[in-house]
């Protein structure tokens, strides 16, 4: 019989304290999606290369599919659900809509969260800096041009 070690993980997600008791091998993306019900974060490649599951862990972008929930214990987490201020969209969210920075939308939460980390670290990135930072976020729909436009527009709006 396989025994499973359980661990109570306490985190602050988008400013709200949350906790759940989960097996030690629970990934952060599963923890967010299935234990906390925050399905805005998406899982695609499961090996940390596509960026769809990007969340901010204490402000830094991580691939939540290869991060364990227990590693996040005590951390502040920002997910796509935490970007808008009520009904007021974050400038990146607004810019993604205006520029057509998404189509199917499955990579979009990860794109926007990764771009937020970029603009937090570097409010006025060059095109090359954007491409370098965002190359870890795959998109099959857009060919990236309109994502690039959206990030630049959001940077302008934020000033």
């Amino acid at each position, binding site marked *: 019989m396989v025994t499973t070690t359980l661990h109570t993980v306490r985190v602050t997600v988008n400013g709200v304290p949350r906790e759940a008791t989960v097996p030690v*091998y629970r990934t952060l993306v599963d923890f967010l999606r299935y234990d906390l019900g925050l399905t805005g974060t998406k899982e695609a490649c499961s090996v940390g290369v596509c960026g769809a599951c990007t969340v901010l862990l204490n402000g830094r972008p991580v691939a939540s599919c290869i991060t364990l929930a227990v590693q996040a214990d005590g951390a502040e987490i920002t997910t796509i*659900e935490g970007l808008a201020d009520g009904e007021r*969209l974050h400038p990146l969210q607004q810019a993604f809509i205006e*520029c057509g920075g998404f189509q199917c*939308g*499955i990579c979009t939460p990860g794109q926007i969260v990764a771009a937020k980390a970029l603009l937090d670290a570097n409010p006025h990135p060059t095109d090359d800096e954007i491409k370098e930072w965002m190359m870890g976020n795959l998109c*099959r729909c857009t060919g990236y041009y*309109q994502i*690039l436009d959206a990030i630049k527009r959001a940077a302008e709006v934020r000033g």
Partner: protein
Amino acid sequence: MSEYGIGRPTPRVDGVEKVTGRARYAADIALPGTLWGKTLHSPYAHARIVRIDTSAARRLPGVHAVITGADTRDGGLWGRGVKDAPVLAYDRVRYAGERVAAVAAEDEDIAQRALDLIEVEYEELPAVFDPLEALRDDAPILHPDFNSYVGFRYKQERPSNIHHRTHLERGDVERGFAEADLIVANTYVTQRQSQGHLEPHSILVYIDPSDGRVHVWHCNKVPHFTRAALAHTAGIPEERIVFHPTYIGGDFGGKGNSRLTPIAYYLAKATGRPVRMISDYLEEFMAGNPRHHVIVRLKTGVKRDGTITAHQVEYIVNSGAYAAFKPYGTIGGANQAAGPYRIPNCRIDSVFVYTNNIPGGFVRAPGEPQGVFAIESHIDEIARRIGMDPAEFRMKNLIAEGEETPWGERLEHVRAREALQAALDAAGYHEPKPPYVGRGVAIGERGTGAGEGTSEIALYPDGRVVVGTPIFDQGTGQYTTIVQVAAQELGVPVERVRVEVWDTDAVPSDSGLAGSRGTYVNSTAAYEAAQEVKRALLRLAARELEWPVEALTYADGAVRRTDTGEAIAWQELVARAGEPVRGRAHVEVPRSHTTAFVAQVAEVAVDPETGEVKLQKFTTAHDAGTVVNPIGFHGQINGAIAMGIGYALMEEIKVEDGRVTTLSLGDYKMPTMRDMPPLTTVVLPSEHGDGPYHIRGIGEGPCTPVAPAIANAVADAVGVRIRDLPITAEKVYRALRQNDTTKG
């Protein structure tokens, strides 16, 4: 451009949901008591299943059901149209990765542990991987019962691995070759490409015990077709099944496929609980349905002045183990391998061959990138052989208005040369370039697909405008299109219009999304629904206001009297009636004879030391109709070009002895933001297109000429010709070294 809808850059109506994480995909749907389903896959490419022992898996606490082919074989075989794939393998497996058993358990981890406890004894059989070997008389026959399968038009006269073949001949091909000054023959080979939708296949099935209804939430863009397929396989009436709408996380051909549907159904039936299945990306690669590996042999006769006298195509499709994942068992591309050229004498043969590989499926413009890579590389090679510029050679031979394609189709409003010229001009094709820099050109075309669609527009007393649709949008923006139509026709701002997506109970059937037809079919349906609702408003005004109906017209958001000039805004009229006013339309739109040409120029720099190809610049020119929404239109072009660049330079599902070895998105390289070159897009709009707004499809065509444009640019840069995709640095390096050796 209209003040309200058509032609205006319109942000997506699903935008807020998608940028906030609120948009719900199949994997996001939860029902109380949901179990996780998972599948066990064959490690062998061809083997007899001697025995499956599921007893240990069944005993594992938390496991609710374990099923094998024995539990599903009494139903029908599975397939999108043609049916040749078992739901779960029985008796034998035909590819490494084939699903042989499935479990449903309390959670995903228990399901995985249960799979590990299933014992399968296999007896390996001789396998055949190469389609040319599979055509030989002594090859193992994969489907000895082929003639009993449902849906195939082809019948085998004797057991073979051929499940479809075509032959087309026009003119006198032998005489054409005899008249040629030069005959050029080449073979081109294309690799397997994943659809690469970042949402893996996901499904939730629940069978309501109170009435037996089967509820499905699934990333499926053709839910009515899949409902019919499930009904066939499960042996239940179609109307017992309902597909509920969810967002779809990318398609590119893969989401018409529904391989998990019957498995999840059988698990739900066995457990009486909702069952969720989510493929992981390993499964997408190991047991997916990628773009087909195709071998294209071309032979062309040409005169010194550049006149093509004869052309012959042999198009050999490696279908893999099953044809079930292409709706009619076939893909296009064989005709395209003759190109949009004036060729009086032409022979096109295609053959579709079973092998012990993962089954191929539909991928954006199914078959066409294969055929277009071949012909557009080949045309370049011929031009160079006769000493003509490749662009000039194309200009000379491209069909014009009134001329037939090599396969005998007479297209309307042909603008092949205009598209090519626009691309050449925008790319600076003839401008001088430094050493090791090359420019390559390629052209393709794609018509707009046919299909049926339904739309309903409802005007509510509180001022809401709601467009109803049976479409499950896979990302291309259909909801925004129909909102634009409603806004345009009713004279209301797009912001006022909402979309209501129906489940499959709402209409008897619907074509769903495929074949670059979405905007054509659904804008036509919404347009007709709008005309219906306008007529209803006139009748209402006549009744409520006692106005003479023959004197009424609808314009700019109001019903107007042409005799007195009086008018009443629709909101006021509907509020006065106190109940919604509706207009509904069902349309069946025919296949178009208008096509959309796309001409592209790639500019590359090749490193002569390493063979590395850097795509410096890309130009794409599009023969279009009305551009309904520039944001979405360019989004389709941009995404298709990215997919084409991946196909040209990096993407390949590698297979060794039938086993896929690129099993993650780490091993399988898709383009990133950094791989995209500066892009120049030229749009040649026109008033010639299909439907009320004269549109031409854009979703697929732009991805097809990309690879040959790049291959031709590499040849232009360093004089090496890569005839098998993808064009990797290794291949270019080897070809460069071989050239060095040949030159001595």
